[in-house]
């Protein structure tokens, strides 16, 4: 028998080999994919329920659902969520008017004036803490400070929502201000512009798309909040277009109230309100995305 020739070239086999490691790798990939599917299921199911049960309530008799008053009795069929839509718009609009200017100013202080001073670092830390305050705690706080003195109103809800929105607006705005390059500020100073004028005419306009996007997302979150309204807005079944006087209601509060009802008529209204609310928040989020895309373009 001749010994193997050591100078002969051995063929190299680069084909993938089945081994335990490869199996584990495939298994993990499958697991990850499984998780993705798993998380998509609730979203699909919820959207399905919303459309199936909410669309019939909300759009069957367009635009009745959006304009009619809320029936006093759960067992009454029909009716609509007109007051709730008006209430949501009032509360969220009022909250935006409070939180957005104050939040932008606060972020301007943190990034342009305070920077890393002790006070600024304290405020930054506390605004992170504030984002974690449960919405029900905010609601109780505003109950003590406002509702106990002035009664139920849409504005009470606005205050509570504004407290929830404020830290979000501050943090989003500060991040956007950080993205404005230093040399733009320098160019403005070199022309003999004061600091406040530079901020208002150069820095904020440059950061604007991102700030708008952040504010819209904060607004969308506020529109969906329920707990604070339970303590501040009260309940109403007719449209109340006044911000300051009289109890009011909102889509989120109505969903909560009707969800616990055992009567399908009320439940249908809850689904209709839910669909309306989801469409509203999705629309706001989409607009926010448009603005985010505009930053990326620059």
């Amino acid at each position: 028998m001749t010994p193997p020739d050591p100078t002969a070239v051995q063929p190299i086999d680069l084909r993938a080999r089945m081994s335990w490691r490869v199996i584990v790798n495939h298994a993990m990939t499958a697991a990850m994919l499984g998780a993705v599917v798993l998380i998509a299921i609730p979203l699909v199911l919820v959207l399905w329920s919303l459309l199936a049960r909410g669309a019939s309530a909300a759009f069957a008799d367009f635009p009745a659902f959006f304009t009619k008053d809320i029936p006093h009795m759960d067992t009454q069929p029909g009716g609509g969520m007109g007051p709730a839509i008006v209430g949501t718009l009032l509360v969220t609009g009022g909250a935006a008017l409070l939180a957005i200017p104050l939040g932008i100013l606060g972020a301007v202080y943190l990034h342009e004036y305070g920077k890393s001073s002790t006070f600024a670092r304290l405020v930054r830390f506390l605004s992170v803490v504030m984002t974690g305050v449960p919405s029900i705690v905010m609601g109780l706080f505003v109950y003590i400070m406002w509702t106990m003195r002035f009664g139920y109103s849409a504005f009470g809800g606005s205050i509570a929502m504004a407290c929830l929105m404020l830290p979000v607006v501050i943090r989003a705005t500060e991040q956007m201000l950080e993205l404005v390059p230093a040399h733009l500020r320098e160019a403005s100073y070199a022309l003999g512009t004061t600091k406040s004028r530079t901020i208002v005419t150069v820095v904020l306009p440059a950061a604007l798309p991102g700030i708008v996007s952040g504010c819209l997302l904060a607004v969308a979150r506020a529109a969906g909040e329920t707990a604070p309204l339970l303590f501040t807005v009260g309940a109403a079944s007719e449209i109340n277009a006044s911000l300051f006087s009289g109890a009011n209601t909102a889509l989120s509060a109505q969903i909560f109230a009707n969800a616990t009802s055992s009567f399908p008529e009320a439940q249908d209204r809850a689904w209709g309100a839910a669909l309306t609310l989801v469409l509203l928040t999705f629309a706001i989020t989409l607009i926010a995305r448009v603005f985010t895309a505009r930053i990326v373009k620059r």
Partner: protein
Amino acid sequence: MVTEATASTASSTSASPRPRGNVPIVEVRPSMVAMLDTAPVVFELADVEVFYGAFRAVRGVTMNIQKNQITAFIGPSGCGKTTVLRSLNRMHDVIPGARVAGQVRYHGVDLYGAGVSPTEVRRRIGMVFQKPNPFPKSIYDNIAFGPRVNGVRDKAKLDEIVEKSLRGAALWDEVKDRLRSSAQGMSGGQQQRLCIARTIAVEPEVVLMDEPCSALDPIATARVEELMRELKHRFTIVIVTHNMQQAARVSDRTAFFTAELDSKTEQRTGQLVEYDVTSKMFSNPRDERTENYITGRFG
């Protein structure tokens, strides 16, 4: 490329210039030197030092800068040229921890004295930066920004200022049909000329330029240099450049800086080595360090 100084030959009483590396040979004419010397003084720097926190970036700068001349600061990187330039219009104010010691006198007034408003200083002493930095606004709004800040509201007046500044920056013909388009859509060279136009729109007395051509291609550079020569008749120009040929081409006086290593603190502190009429410095420098830099032995 030769500068205007040699446009006509003249008999010279100074020693005939020796070739210095690839720096153009310039003949010194005494009449020219005399003319330079009698121009009024705009800045008087007396023992100026700049600190960033505890770090002394530059020390012992004493010099005068004269009206309607182009003064160049040259030297290797890290030797304090930009630091000194920025001390002329109080731009160090925006950097936390920066401190200027000594005196920077502008028309006799110490810019760092009590009661001086940095905003007022910068209205009179403008600055063009190394990397063009137009605002994300239209061309028109970029130029009109300064005048608007100074209170000019009348549209006709603003239109006039915008046109005048763009002409002054040799940019008018290129952009006159698209004044409302975004300034950031222009080429690098155009953006820099826009920044120059923006600076001269507020009619400062002095224009400081921090390596204005270093981000530009050679053609754009040539245009900006041409612009500088025109602008010096209206403004006093101080330019920092790491390109000594540019200093030789463009400037009337040149200041050479270098950095010295302090062995104890391991810090490099910049200092002014030599300051003279450009043609004299490049043909017959007094200090050995200047000569080494110019002939390319270091830098």
